[in-house]
């Protein structure tokens, strides 16, 4: 559906994104992950026809963003990081306006509006002025305007930004409910957000894609990415809770191919240890800890493995650049 072919975007001499090269298939839910300033929003704005690439080519369903933006705009629904809302309008009135802007006829719009408001949980506030709604509800209105015309491609830039924990859970459920109806592109600097909602992840750092693949592929190293990241990607990540002294724990885990990445003190004499290993080593680690007479309180493959990979990739890229400089 989307083909991005060696796309760069420069602002003066500064590259916002460089040599982006990826494809997204119909129906996929893809997350763009990166730190602030990594180039996520620029990428999404390029795909939304709000920006034109300095070089390279972007096509969506065969339409070129440069030559046929009008055709592409018929296909997309876009929610920027700040929802584009007119605060003086009422919710239903605004959604009707958004639908008409997207060339929906009155009959189709009348049938669609109740469904969209039900889907986004806006029925109770349909007659309320947008400016009086909470941030969470405004974000819902933002999503509703993006889906009102049933676009083939839904682009959501940082959809959970500024939401409280309850609103985040609700927003996540809402985005999940939209899967299957649209191809979804989602950006976030929060990994758990991407992990929980997307099929595939594109990691961006400093305007470049540093890795891409499914969550599993990224953790286990099968993902596409520069050669230098293979090792980091293929690592196995384990989190331990061990009762004992730090030197004893370090000694017990001094194994070939195993590296202690982080060691922090928890409650009492319990230590929290994050370990990276080249191969699957959970059993070996457990037995070494027990043999050393330490108390093994817990051991799990870390759920934030991808976060470690993400942080390492980001850091690795920066360090590499410093060395180059």
């Amino acid at each position: 559906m989307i083909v991005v072919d060696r796309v760069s975007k420069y602002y003066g001499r500064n590259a916002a994104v460089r040599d982006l090269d990826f494809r997204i298939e119909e129906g996929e839910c893809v997350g763009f992950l990166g730190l602030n300033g990594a180039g996520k929003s620029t990428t999404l704005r390029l795909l939304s026809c709000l920006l034109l690439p300095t070089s390279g080519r972007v096509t969506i369903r065969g339409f070129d963003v440069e030559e046929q933006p009008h055709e592409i705009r018929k296909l997309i629904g876009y929610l920027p990081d700040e929802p584009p809302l007119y605060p003086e309008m009422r919710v239903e009135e605004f959604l009707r306006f958004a639908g008409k802007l997207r060339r929906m006829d009155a009959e189709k719009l009348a049938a669609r509006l109740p469904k969209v408001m039900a889907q986004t949980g806006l029925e109770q506030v349909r007659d309320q002025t947008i400016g009086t709604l909470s941030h969470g509800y405004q974000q819902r209105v933002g999503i509703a305007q993006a889906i009102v015309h049933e676009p083939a491609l839904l682009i959501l830039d940082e959809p959970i930004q500024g939401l409280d924990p309850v609103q985040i859970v609700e927003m996540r459920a809402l985005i999940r409910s939209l899967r299957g109806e649209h191809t979804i592109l989602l950006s976030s600097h929060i990994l758990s957000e991407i992990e929980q909602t997307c099929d595939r992840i594109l990691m961006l750092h400093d305007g470049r894609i540093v890795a891409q693949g499914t969550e599993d592929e990224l953790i286990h190293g099968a993902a596409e990415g520069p050669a230098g990241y293979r090792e980091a990607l293929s690592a196995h990540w384990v989190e331990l809770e061990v009762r004992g002294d730090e030197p004893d724990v370090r000694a017990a885990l001094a194994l070939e191919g195993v590296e202690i990445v982080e060691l922090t003190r928890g409650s009492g004499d319990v230590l929290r240890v994050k370990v990276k290993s080249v191969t699957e080593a959970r059993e070996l680690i457990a037995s070494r800890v027990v043999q050393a007479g330490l108390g093994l309180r817990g051991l799990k493959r870390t759920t934030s493995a991808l976060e470690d990979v993400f942080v390492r990739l980001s850091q690795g890229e920066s360090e590499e650049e410093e060395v180059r400089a």
Partner: protein
Amino acid sequence: MSNVGLIIKRELGSYLRTPSGYFIAAGVLLLDGLLFNAFALGEEPQLSSDVLRIFFYWAGIVTMLGGVVFSMRLLAEERWTGTDVLLFTSPIREGEVVLGKYLSALIFLTALTLLSLYLPALIFVNGKVSWGHIGAGYLGMVLLGATTLAVGTFASALTKNPFLAVLLSGLFVGLLELCWPLGQIAEPPLTEVLSYVALHTKHFSPFQRGLLQLSDVVFYLGMIYLSLLAATKVLASQRWR
């Protein structure tokens, strides 16, 4: 409804629901009234046609000021609040956005201008003027306001800061008007060229006196077209930035 009509409807609704529309309306009408009382009526007895001419002179300036202030409500505000994204990710052309925003402001400014009709009507209490004079004066004011608004639309396309848009709009309109005194001291052919672009002094004067000249109408329409075209091109070029 066309895209332009859709934007006009939304914008007019917004003018009526937000304080800024009422503030501008109140400011324009208050100034019209004060200036009519201070200069048109004056202290000395005057011919009714002179009272009307002086009223149009000052009301024309107030309309221009109103047009300049409206610049903030045009494209700049849309970009400032981020709602331009909704428009520019929809299948709608830049020209339609410009025209919709412009026409909605023009409708509001025209309605506002017509609300001052009670002032020239007061002349009938103690005098008599022709309805033709009043009609020509108001047509001139609408054209002057429409031209100022078009220049303001262009200024508003250049920046996302609404206050900067007002300043730029004021600067452009002021520069065009400044061309009149410059034209008076310049050598030919600059004299004619500079004098020709003065929005108020050159082209509005005949309307003040109740004269309707095709050349002035053509000038205003030409300025409107060029300004709106430039605003559209500026908006379209923003995708490249």
